[in-house]
């Protein structure tokens, strides 16, 4: 499952992310092992806004498609 598939208001855990992703994502707090929640999204789910480590970060759908997640129970 990827971040782009997360339903509104649902939480998940970020899995190990590929090296090709912008490091800024990490530095803003979105990193493996953190809980992430889809807070709101624009029409057509693009862009999407997530809460991670207490911060709201929005990103375009094509980036969210590259971030693997797992359900919080799996931890």
């Amino acid at each position, binding site marked *: 499952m990827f971040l782009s598939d997360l339903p509104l208001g649902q939480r998940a855990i970020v899995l190990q992310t590929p090296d090709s992703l912008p490091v800024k994502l990490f530095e803003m*707090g979105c990193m493996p092992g953190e809980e992430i929640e889809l807070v709101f999204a624009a029409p057509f789910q693009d862009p999407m806004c997530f809460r991670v480590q207490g911060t709201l970060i929005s990103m375009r759908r094509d980036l969210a498609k590259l971030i693997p997640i797992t359900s919080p129970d799996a931890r």
Partner: protein
Amino acid sequence: MPDKKALRIALVGRPNTGKSSLFNRLTGLNQKVGNYPGITMERTTGLAKWAPGVLAEVIDLPGVYSLHASSTDEEVVMEALLQEAPEERIDRVIGLADGTNLKTCLFVFSQVLDLGLPAVLAVTMRDEMERRGMELKTEELAATLGCAVILVNTRTGEGLDALREAVLRAEPSGKLPFFQPGGLHLRWLAQVQEDQSMALPYRAWLWGLKEAQVGKSDRLQQPPPRARTDEAIQRYRQVNQWLRAFFVADPVKDRRWTARLDRVVVHPIWGSVILFGLLFLLFQGLFYGSEAPMNFIDDQLAALSTWLTDHLPSGFLAHLLSHGLVPGIAGVLMFIPQIALLFAFISLLEESGYMARVVFIMDRFMRPFGLSGKSVVPMVSGTACAIPAIMSTRNMENSRERFLAIAVTPLITCSARLPVYALLIGLVIPNSAWMGMNLRGVVLLGLYALGFVAALAGSALLHRWMPAKKTPAFLLEMPPYRWPQGRNVLTAVWNRTKSFVTEAGKIILAISIILWFLASFGPNRTPDFTQERAPLPIEESYIGYAGKAIEPVMAPLGFDWKVSVAVVSSFVAREVFVGTMATLYSVDDEDNTTIRAQMAREVNPRTGQPYFTLAVGVSLLLFYAFAMQCASTFAVVARETKSYRFAVIQFIVLGALAYGVAWIAYAMLV
């Protein structure tokens, strides 16, 4: 003299941490807005006396999430902090942290500390922390970080004295390092340190990774992968430890207002309704709200002009003052109400946290044009006037998008085009009904639509053609909503207005005096400044000759020499077209209907029919829709892009476009 030199203090922190509020508090209105060398990013510094004999130069660096460069913002900050030349070196750093969101703020601050600079951590949003029952054990955190930690409230000024004192006493932290690279990374770092003889590991780390990223160092060994990622993971682990030990919070109360507001503000339907409502308000405000102050300025300067004519002995000097200088000053001052209004509005949007939502809502729509939601504000403001609209692009972080927005904003139908459109539409478009609507109204609406379409299409084309450098990923933080601070709004309005008057104002004034000269003097006739009317007939002035000289060039567009003269002279401002036409047709009062009636009587000597046919009218309308006929826009573009070349190319390209479109339209209609 070391004691004479100002202490250079940099403000470093994430965006939305109250950095500009603190900056305004520390420096007052004594600010200087300049530019970073080589790029068009704004650099604000402020001087203040902090203690007897201690002058502080506070530098407001852009907000960043990390010292590693992902975009120009971070590059600027890193370069400033790595600077070693004595006159450029940063002496002290004030790190900023939003007390309600410490985690990501402490991440950046631990990077700053690792650079070995004397630093103090200022924790903002103190009032909000108290309201939410958050508690930070500052003394314990200070002991762990090895630097002072001061709680400040930028609204009331609480904690500022303590902050100033701590900054003066600050020394490099003795608790370094907070990040220790391991394995391959450590070996690579040791190599960089040795090659560059850099004593401090983190300095070498930042520098080495930047060089590797730019790819300009062949001598430098490539760093092992995941260097920055590992650093981020290690630092966050550390920050989380600190917060567990020193911070108490009630997570349920957290950000409840923001979440509640966001349910409406970024709602797929309500969000758009609110946004368009606000943009409509902006449009109304710029269009009608600035009318009264603009009329006031106009009246005062017209009175001054009359007074000068009446009281000075008539002659060259009186004419220069009353017809060259005063209208030039009017041309500068007239824009102030709109600029002030627009920047108050933008500042409110930014301060409240709403601007990030605008970008979010509009992102999908603006993306194909190479623009983001931020361009919506200049596009809408452009319907009032391109001057404040182009200035408003300063708030864009992405320089490529800023370039696109500045390039196409003059195409938007501004209020100066209205008198020209009104005159020409009244002249050539019949006052009949079309699908139940007044045809003249439909044409005017069509011209507005044309402006927007041309601007967006132009931006999309440039976006396609312009070689794309690495575009930073679209990662945008949604700051929590906050009540805007009046002080910050006023400072923003003051700085913008001041820089417009002192910088673009000079160019506008110079151009209007040059144009006055060209309209008042001619090659073959000595101007007579003693009489009441113009010193010489306009057709015998340099502008008149220029108009006649380009008549053959303008002929394919259907323009005769009179229209050509009016087109040339309206380079000052588009609405001058109306006045020039009045002069050329010897109409005394500048009332639209009178001029229109006179123009309607004009006969084309070739056909014997009325000269202003539909073809000529449409051709002229289209010419004014596309051409950058505005000296002030030219001046502001030159100033904002720091490049006359840009302004000249824009002027030529838009002129060529106007010519081409008008030509095709005329050829098809005639």
